[in-house]
């Protein structure tokens, strides 16, 4: 209704603005709720309490303003153009994931037929930015961090993709909108209740996806690339000011996006059983999806704040010897069950 009265360029502009505002907003929400407040309470302290008056809600926005004011420092030996571009490459890969995640029957930037494939493909673009950042910094810590990050992102890309294959087999489509509808319609082993959030039939896949997403985000059990005790800040070591801010936004923006993907793939996405079409579904969709995103993000950050970091070899072993065989097993089992039911 509403969308029809607008011309193509107007719709495109609105969509672009929405994505441009959701990424920093999501990053700030996750950063504030989990990084600042939840971590603080898990460590039996209060976290920021003063900025903004109420429980320090303004802290991260203030930090952002501070970063923007800072001088843009590029090391003398750095490859200037590559150094300057690297944060943008990473940020763009974050923005592109948001294109396909639906938050309502019509609230999706572009419902691609190969939606999940697209999302995983662009999310792995960030490894290019990480390598660019590490190589161009002319710093041994940056380079080591970037190489570790590249090795880790490639290793964990596999279980991530393979875990999603299970969902795709079960849903019969790669479109994220299609996957949401499939979860709404399908039955759990022949039992019709409220549809089939794939977390029930794909519980192994969900765990694999979360573990791989944790590693893709370089969150703590898998934060070897930015291990501050040995690599200062990994590939981000030489960055400051708004370029560092870009890294921060893309880290938490990607966490928000991957939590959104997990919520869409496994928890039913925006779907709620009362409204399937129309305005109410579009209004409730973002809320429902938001709650699920926060739940998945809670799991991710809960694990982050609890466990110590893997050693580099343990990290690779975990991916190649455990996660990948398990995800292959998951595909086989899903295939068998798909044929059986």
């Amino acid at each position, binding site marked *: 209704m509403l969308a029809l009265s607008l011309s193509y360029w107007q719709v495109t502009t609105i969509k672009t603005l929405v994505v441009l505002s959701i990424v920093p907003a999501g990053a700030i929400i996750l950063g504030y709720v989990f990084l600042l407040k939840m971590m603080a309470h898990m460590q039996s302290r209060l976290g920021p309490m003063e900025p903004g008056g109420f429980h320090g809600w303004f802290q991260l926005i203030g930090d952002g303003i501070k970063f923007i004011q800072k001088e843009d420092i590029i090391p003398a030996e750095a490859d200037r153009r590559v150094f300057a571009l690297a944060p943008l490459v990473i940020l763009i890969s974050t923005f592109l994931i948001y294109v396909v995640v639906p938050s309502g029957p019509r609230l999706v930037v572009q419902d691609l037929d190969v939606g999940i494939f697209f999302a995983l493909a662009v999310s792995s673009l960030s490894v290019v930015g990480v390598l660019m950042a590490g190589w161009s910094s002319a710093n041994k810590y940056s380079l080591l961090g970037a190489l570790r990050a590249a090795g880790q992102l490639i290793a964990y890309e596999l279980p991530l993709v393979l875990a999603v294959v299970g969902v795709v087999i079960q849903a019969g489509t790669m479109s994220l909108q299609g996957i949401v509808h499939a979860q709404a319609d399908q039955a759990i082993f022949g039992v019709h209740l409220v549809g089939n959030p794939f977390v029930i039939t794909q519980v192994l896949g969900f765990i694999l996806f979360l573990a791989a997403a944790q590693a893709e985000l370089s969150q703590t059990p898998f934060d070897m690339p930015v291990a501050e005790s040995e690599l200062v800040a990994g590939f981000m070591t030489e960055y400051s000011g708004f370029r560092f801010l870009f890294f921060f936004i893309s880290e938490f923006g990607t966490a928000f996006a991957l939590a959104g993907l997990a919520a869409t793939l496994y928890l039913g996405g925006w779907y709620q059983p009362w409204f399937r079409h129309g305005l109410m579904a579009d209004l409730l969709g973002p809320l429902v999806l938001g709650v699920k995103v926060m739940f998945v993000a809670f799991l991710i950050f*809960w694990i982050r704040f609890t466990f110590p970091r893997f050693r580099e070899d343990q990290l690779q072993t975990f991916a190649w010897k455990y996660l990948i065989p398990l995800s292959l097993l998951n595909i086989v089992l899903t295939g068998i069950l798909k044929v059986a039911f």
Partner: protein
Amino acid sequence: MPQLPGRGLIKGLGVTFKTMTQPAVTVQYPKEKEEPPTRARGVIALKEENCTACMLCGRECPDWCIYIEGHKEKRPPRREGGKPRTVNILDRFDIDYALCMYCGICVEVCPFDALFWTPEYEYSEARIADLLHDKDKLGEWMATVPEPEALEAGAEKKK
């Protein structure tokens, strides 16, 4: 019974979750303050009338942060026909808290109970020289010295 692999990981998640649901142990310092324990070593108070300027504390101080000056005065004898008494008068007693390492040896060594620990800790200064507390300032801290804890039941009374 064989233990499940990953049992410790679950337990760890439980610990962090439980901590999250409990109130924080930290306080918002300038707005609310923790009560330090009565024997906390905050600052040293001087009871001037007990001090005889014997200089034991100054000599024992590892940091040499206590400055004492005194002079002797003659006082009339206690009994008729006796020799006049000599008393030590304290002119200066300063503790430089910029040097003090809060070892408490001066308090231990004082033979006349002139030095006391008090739990007060809010005496930071913008200038380092202001951390030198003179004997008036040290005397003011006496008001904050906590009462000694009650003796245990059945303990020998002090004579």
